[in-house]
């Protein structure tokens, strides 16, 4: 059975919807701003923030402000609605949702906690109502009319890739007829300070795969795709031909210097699809811009592709690292890459990492045939997942 991708939806710091995201990337405009203006934080660090308040997002969604949804849910609703409309899913089918998030409703919880910590009868309870991860899935399903099997996955920065894998398996086992899969994560002071405490945030714009890279920029957004059984649809963007979820089992936060987990995930995704490395036309890398990730991922790329690493890039220079949404956003970009022959530029690259000599794609290309795209998502806890899309 083949798994068809029939719809895509995306929200990032570049804006809401496929069109404006691609337009920005085509003109090389990054969504990273010098500091957060919507998020309440004293940190002056660059972030990929969607410059719309939660109130405005409620208005855009047509949801009353009094519903007081978390930002993760709002971003998710926008992307899922776009994906469902795009796929023209028959609402009488069993439509499922596998959504992922790493922060859930933390954007509201941290407002609550700031007051609660001083006085435990203070803090508005409606700010903690959506704390848990499933609350965002629940709200997305409710406001997008999804009534089939629903679940939530959280494996740090590989979450959305794992949600996509889970969705493919649900289709295969006939638990759903179509399934919306991906992830959503809002910026929060919790994650911004968390990554700051790990000293892996760049104080300037992130420079993935560059010799001088100094860390990542955090971002927010949502990315979802719709999966259906190929025999049930007349047309589609492309197929999800392979996937793999492996563990690096090296360190709690750091990736192994040999890129073991990443190598295992990429090679298993290929072998599951019965595709040789030489047939991969583009790799959408995890490429966070931290010294550790990019070295480890480069090692894995060289191990898999030898001297013939295909065109590759990290799109995080545009969006920032959107954590649990990253795998969803990058799956949308990978799917569009096959459909339209796009290859995305890797911003801020100057010099390759001496050890590997890998040079990512630096301009927006739409002049070539892209039949096969591999996309990587790696996370804390050693989680490494890869997806393989083919025409």
């Amino acid at each position: 059975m083949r798994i068809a991708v029939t719809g895509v939806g995306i929200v990032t710091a570049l804006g809401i919807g496929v069109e404006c995201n691609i337009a920005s990337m085509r003109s090389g405009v990054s969504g990273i701003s010098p500091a957060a203006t919507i998020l309440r934080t004293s940190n002056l660090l660059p972030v990929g923030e969607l410059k719309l308040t939660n109130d405005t997002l409620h208005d855009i969604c047509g949801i009353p402000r009094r519903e007081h949804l978390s930002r993760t849910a709002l971003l998710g609703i926008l992307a899922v609605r776009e994906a469902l409309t795009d796929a023209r899913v028959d609402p009488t089918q069993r439509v499922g949702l596998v959504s992922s998030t790493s922060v859930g409703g933390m954007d509201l919880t941290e407002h609550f906690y700031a007051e609660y910590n001083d006085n435990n009868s203070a803090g508005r309870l409606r700010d903690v109502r959506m704390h848990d991860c499933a609350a965002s899935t629940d709200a997305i399903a409710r406001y997008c009319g999804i009534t089939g099997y629903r679940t939530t996955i959280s494996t740090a920065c590989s979450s959305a890739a794992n949600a996509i894998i889970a969705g493919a398996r649900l289709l295969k086992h006939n638990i759903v007829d179509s399934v919306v899969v991906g992830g959503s994560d809002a910026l929060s002071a919790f994650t911004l300070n968390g990554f700051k405490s790990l000293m892996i945030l760049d104080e300037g714009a992130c420079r993935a795969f560059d010799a001088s890279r100094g860390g990542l920029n955090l971002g927010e957004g949502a990315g979802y795709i719709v999966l259906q059984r190929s025999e049930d649809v007349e047309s589609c963007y492309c197929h999800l031909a392979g996937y793999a979820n492996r563990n690096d089992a090296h360190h709690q936060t750091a990736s192994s210097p040999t890129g073991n987990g990443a190598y295992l995930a990429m090679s298993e995704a290929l072998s599951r699809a019965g595709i040789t490395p030489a047939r991969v036309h583009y790799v959408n890398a995890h490429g966070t811009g931290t010294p550790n990730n990019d070295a480890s991922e480069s090692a894995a790329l060289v191990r898999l592709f030898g001297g013939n690493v295909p065109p590759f890039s990290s799109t995080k220079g545009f969006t920032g690292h959107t954590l649990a949404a990253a795998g969803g956003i990058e799956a949308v970009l990978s799917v569009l890459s096959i459909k339209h022959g796009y290859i995305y530029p890797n911003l801020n690259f100057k010099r390759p990492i001496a050890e590997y000599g890998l040079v990512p794609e630096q301009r927006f290309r739409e002049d070539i045939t892209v039949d096969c795209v591999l996309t990587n998502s790696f996370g804390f806890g050693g989680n490494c997942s890869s997806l393989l899309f083919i025409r």
Partner: protein
Amino acid sequence: MEQLIQELKEHLIEELNLEEITPEDIDADAPLFGEGLGLDSIDALEIILILEKYYGVKLANSAEAKPVFRSVRTLAEYILQNRK
């Protein structure tokens, strides 16, 4: 110097939650990472915090800080040189 070393050992045990280790068990000249105490990159971040919190000494990042992190004694020397 010796007093500072003793104090640092106590901070390390406390902040890094070193189970069943007393200051006497830590050799001031033994390596902190890998062999010796067997600390890792997360501990390095915590040690940077200890230096800043208790001694007001800043270290840019853990890679540049490598020679400083060699042992408890090198940490103490760094504090003495940089404390205001």
